[in-house]
């Protein structure tokens, strides 16, 4: 009775609040930053450690010979984020989906919530990978983007995946997470969960529903607009809002997006470029509308700020995806890839979707959520129905079509991109 036990008899399941809350906020955390001087920074500070190996071209033969040497082990170590998996409400350290995996395969999962943000976790494992040692983790969850998981991919520090061991992925994965631009052919990663970046707003203050990217430029909202001070989010959001696709936009498009954002700033539209604290200003009415992460708005709703709404602009918005990957040197790669396959099994995906409530990579698990809802009673039923009908867990095809990932910048493009967009919020 995994499902109905999970639900508490109060309106919205706390799991939703927990799951939809933006666990990714601290990535650019200003105050945490002071303490998180990464090991990578120190290594490079010590007089020019020369570069890491360039993206290694991996031949199919090498992949096969690697995997032919991997065998079943008693279990694997899984590095994850806090509050990022289903929990048994009676025992928070018990995770039903992992128990089910152990029952089915005999492999134990050492589930460790050790990742607080991409930068500092990568900073922690980078020096270890650099010297060719094992990080101690067999599976990690990291966000897409050239500065996050792309960094490890480029350096050749991830184990290429053997897709013959991932039949569920081929069969059940959502089209959006198959063959993504940041990892063509899913060579190194498969998606864990995704989320949207759109506009959060308070209709009482704006006086109308917000539907468009252009609303962020309406002079009526002068000084009441919040934007994100994030080098990937802000430019990608502008590109998608202007009708380009952030994944394929050219440098000429970038310039137009920069001009548009500059113009918005110079016109005094923007109250502030927020690192992560935009939600306070939005719920206090300091801003009326703001670039926002879907999870934050949901949590704000659940914790009292009922007025706030979230919309993906009709022109387009951003989607981010957290990915499962196996770092080089993993001792239990076989178990890890077995688990990767497991999370794409619809029954397992349903258990996780009911507990995590981000965008599941397995749309077909919805029928399981529905049947669980039909079996449940009272508020539990309400909660499961709410999840099953929630476009933030099961987005429509239209929402998928209108959202794009961050561009897969090359190391030569990164400084161009940064020089173009940084001055917008760095002032």
């Amino acid at each position, binding site marked *: 009775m995994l499902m109905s036990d999970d639900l508490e008899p109060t309106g919205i399941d706390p799991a939703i609040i927990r799951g939809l809350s933006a666990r990714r906020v601290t990535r650019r955390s200003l105050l945490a930053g002071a303490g998180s001087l990464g090991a*990578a*920074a120190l290594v490079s*500070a010590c007089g*020019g450690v020369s570069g890491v190996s360039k993206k290694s071209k991996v031949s199919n033969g090498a992949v096969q010979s690697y995997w032919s040497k991997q065998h079943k082990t008693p279990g694997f170590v899984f590095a994850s984020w806090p509050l990022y998996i289903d929990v048994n409400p009676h025992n928070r350290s018990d995770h039903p989906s992992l128990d089910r995996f152990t029952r089915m395969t005999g492999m134990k999962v050492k589930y460790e919530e050790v990742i607080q943000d991409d930068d500092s976790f990568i900073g922690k494992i980078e020096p270890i990978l650099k010297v060719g040692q094992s990080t101690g983790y067999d599976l990690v969850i990291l966000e897409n983007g050239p500065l996050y998981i792309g960094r490890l991919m480029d350096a050749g520090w991830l184990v290429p995946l053997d897709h013959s061991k991932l039949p569920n992925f081929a069969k059940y994965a959502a089209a959006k997470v198959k063959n993504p631009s940041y990892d063509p052919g899913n060579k190194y990663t498969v998606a864990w969960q995704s989320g949207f970046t759109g506009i959060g707003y308070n209709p009482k203050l704006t006086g109308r529903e917000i539907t468009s990217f252009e609303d962020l430029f309406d002079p009526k909202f002068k*000084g009441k607009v919040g934007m994100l001070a994030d080098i990937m989010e802000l430019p990608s959001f502008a590109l998608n809002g202007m009708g380009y696709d952030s994944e394929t936009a050219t440098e000429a498009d970038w310039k137009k997006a920069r001009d548009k954002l500059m113009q918005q700033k110079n016109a005094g539209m923007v109250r502030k*470029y927020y690192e992560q604290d935009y939600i*306070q200003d939005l719920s206090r009415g300091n801003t009326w509308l703001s670039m926002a992460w879907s999870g934050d708005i949901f949590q704000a709703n659940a914790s009292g700020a009922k007025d706030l709404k979230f919309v993906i602009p009709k022109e387009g918005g951003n989607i981010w995806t957290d990915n499962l990957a196996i770092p080089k040197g993993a001792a239990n790669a076989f178990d890890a890839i077995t688990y990767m396959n497991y999370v794409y099994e619809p029954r397992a995906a349903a258990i996780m979707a009911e507990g995590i409530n981000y965008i599941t990579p397995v749309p077909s698990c919805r029928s399981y959520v529905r049947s669980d809802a039909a079996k449940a009673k009272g508020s539990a039923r309400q909660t499961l129905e709410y999840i099953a009908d929630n476009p933030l867990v099961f987005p429509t095809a239209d929402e998928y079509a209108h959202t794009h990932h961050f561009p897969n910048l090359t190391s030569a493009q990164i400084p161009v991109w940064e020089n173009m967009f940084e001055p917008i919020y*760095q002032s």
Partner: protein
Amino acid sequence: MSTVEAVEARSGARRGRRTRRLRATLAPYGLVLPGGLWLAIFFVAPMVAMLLLSLQTGNIISGFQQTLHVATYENVVRTYHTELVRSLVYGLIVSAVTIVLAYPMAYWIAFHGGSRKSTYLFLTLLPFFVSFLIRTLSWNFLLADNGLILGQLKSWGIVSQDFHVLATPFAVIAGLTYNFFPFMLLPLYVALERIDKSMVEAATDLYAGRTQRFLRIVLPLSIPGVFAGVLLVFVPASSDFINASILGGTNTTMIGNVIQTEYFTNNDYPSASALAFVLMAILLIGIFAYARALGTKDVLEASAG
């Protein structure tokens, strides 16, 4: 006493004197050694590392190489001169405002505080028992556009609906002033408190009026305190980044925020280090110019006191 003995005794005394003189010469070095080593290890070493870092080229993905790429300095100054100038201007304003606010207060406590001097000082420091981060964040809460204070003023129609304090330069400067106030107050108090009251009495005996007494006795004698206070306020205020990020808005970014972002977000360590050095150089030049203007003697007294 034979001549031989006398000669030996004299040379023995000379030897003893020489050892004593040697010890006397070395003693100061011995005293300086522990602190000097501490500074060498924890101040000079990171400084050298930072300097080398600022001259590197490369990026986080392909690694950094040690070069002598001084162009980074030119580049960061060109890109961020607005923020540099803004930080220095904010620092100057904050120093001036804290002097204006703290001087009368320090004067009153020093000259009229009586037996409760330490109580008054303690009271001024009381807020600092709470983390300044929490205090700054609570201003962010109190001053919300429709929050406790402004919401009430707006409902009474005292200020216009559009009026806001947060996200303005005023908010940032006020926050800095609030946070650095005691760093001005304490050195001013120490300088004023040291003034020998009999000097003021002597001035009175010589028919100096209140204004004359203040301008010719109290003020000159308190200048070391002003210098120390400005040093303690101006330097950290111009490199602060907390106030700008919590209370500021679109055009209030200070150089500390830029360095912070360059380092932790963009992992552009050379640019961040170069900016830090530029800021340090400007502050050092500024302080030396300021020291010259106030007179070296006063400055030495300030550092001695």
